[in-house]
């Protein structure tokens, strides 16, 4: 099942399917509701992939900060914090 990284539960693991970060259904639905559009700039994509978030990579969501804060994720053995807006746009394949 393809879901945005932000919708994974704590401790869940997914495999990145796309890093062109157009965002999934959730993101589009929210954009319709008038959510402020966060663009994934080329720079963001490059920084994410440089840190190891390339397509096909396993990502584990460790936990998320409260009040819609950033996500703590585990990629290739390193611990990263990434903003929630960005996590909405990273699509992962999850077994549920």
């Amino acid at each position: 099942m393809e879901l945005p990284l932000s919708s994974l539960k704590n401790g869940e693991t997914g495999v990145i399917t796309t890093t062109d970060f157009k965002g999934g259904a959730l993101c589009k639905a929210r954009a319709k509701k008038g959510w402020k559009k966060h663009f994934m700039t080329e720079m963001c994509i490059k920084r994410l992939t440089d840190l190891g978030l390339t397509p096909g990579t396993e990502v584990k969501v460790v936990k998320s900060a409260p009040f819609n804060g950033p996500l703590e994720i585990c990629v290739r053995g390193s611990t990263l914090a990434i903003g929630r807006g960005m996590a909405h746009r990273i699509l992962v394949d999850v077994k549920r």
Partner: protein
Amino acid sequence: MSGDHFTIALAGNANVGKSVIFNQLTGLHQHIGNWPGKTVEKAEGTLHYKGHTIDFVDLPGIYSLSTFSMEELVSREYIATEKPDLVINVVDASLLERNLFFTLQLLELETPLLVALNQIDMAEKKGIVIDTKKAEQILGVPVVPTVAVSGKGITEMLDLGIDVIQKNRKISPLKPRYGKELEERTEALIKMLDGVDLEYPARWVAIKLLEDDKEVQNEVGPLNSKIVKTATKFRTELETFHGHSCPTVVTSERYHLANYIANQIQTITEPIKTPFREKLHTATTHKIFGYPILFATVIGVFIAIFSFGDFTSALLGDFFFGLKPAFDTVFGTDIIGQLIWGGIIEGIVGGITVTLPYIVPFYFILYLFEDSGYLSRIAFLMDNLMHKMGLHGKAFIPVMLSFGCNVPGCLGCRIMETTRERLLTAFVVTLVPCAATSVIILGLVGTYVGIPWAMALYAINLVIIFVLGRIAFKALPGEPTELIMEMSAYRTPHLTTVLKQTWFRLKEFIIMAFPLIIAGSFVIKLAEVANLLDPIANLSSPLTVAWLGLPAVTGIALIFGVLRKELTLIMLASLFGTTNFALVMTPTQMIVFTLVVMLYIPCVATIGALVKEFGWKKALLITVVEILLALLVGGIAFRLLTI
């Protein structure tokens, strides 16, 4: 061969212990400055070893060699154009895959390389065992296990490095090769690049063209535009084939290779037990407990800094002012004597006694936190709040610093990724009430009006910061960026490195702020000696008396406050001839006065920091905006409070 002069560059990811190695190698023979024309820090140092003179350059901690950050650009330009005799790639042994991703890029730059497998002890604790021999075979360069904090392996690393430079040890660095589709197109581009004169290796240029690297395109374009066009065509082909954008394809291929190599040379077993540092991480980033821990830490630090500062400041003050009678007998108490003492010496003494006792422990604790890894946890917790101002979690660090002093706050804005965010953060930072402002809030309003009012002023200030931050965020063109940050494992800070960082920051602070404070004191003393203060007070009375409802002398106090904000209170006491402000000012006047002092202008040292980081125009703009803001807020407060 001895008595040679070498240059060795240290390169690697952030948080791998690179600066600890740099400190171990160079001791106090260091020079910290900026890369020419950039706000990226450049650390250089010299070592005399076995008759050789070795210059070390500590490159910024980065994850890649693209052009999306100044640090990356500076690093790759340095390696390609300055051609150091050796690049030591410091690698975190417990995070091999991601670190090798960077090593591969250094190999692509075809620079003489040595790999230092640092923090090998931490890796072992995590259950990671690395086969160094195999790593050397695969990478084709010397690989040395090191533990930077204890100095283990540093000498071996250095000896091997010199062997490589002197060609006593032959190296045959790995030539990274990627997937078939990518390789075919890279080869084709290399053929086309034959005869094109560039500083960089042809293969590196070819790959960078496929990565859509704008800098390389700008360099190759004018020499041969056909190559750039072909690269664009190749990119489209690769994108259709792989289904991802071409830069992502290249990055994936590199990671694929890094993953392969990492798996070849490391064996991972289960760690024995959950280390304490992981428990600490869980607690300090906990969604409920993380905040009280953060709050208690920050409050604790400020209490510690203030008690230390108060004590030392009083001690130093007594000492210096004890020298005044001796000074008077030498220089006399006429105008010249007054100018020298009141203008210059008091400026220096003020700087030493008031600023240093607070700044030194402040920087020390800051670097202790940074080195241990706590700062990134704070950024993680505060990300959401900062988002409301269009900033991300990292911006909370300079804001937090500013409660101590705005100057480190302004300089701390460098941690932000884009110029836009740096400026936005700096604007917010200069509105934060620093320690000196707190002295006035608590000493005037807190003492004579009441603590609830003092707290209310803090609250008002925070609201103003928030509202203005939001307005500035909407007004400044550009896209907000989001938090992307590594939270590397907690580690014991390395005391010598922390002390050195404190020392270099302190030096920077003194060089920047002291001349401004001294020059400022001198100018004001001159005005005082020339009896210009009263005319100034009269001149500013339409603003101070009519608009803000304050006593006319506050005009003078406010001018002094530009030097250091706590001077407003000291001047007020001497102008009124009493320290019992209740006799000379109404509570409303105290509140309005404090509000104005909180906002009206960044002090000279802060303006100096702003000029250094952003240039004259932006520093002036921020200053003017804040003067207007202070007048507006003060005027409104006066009218509201006298209804």
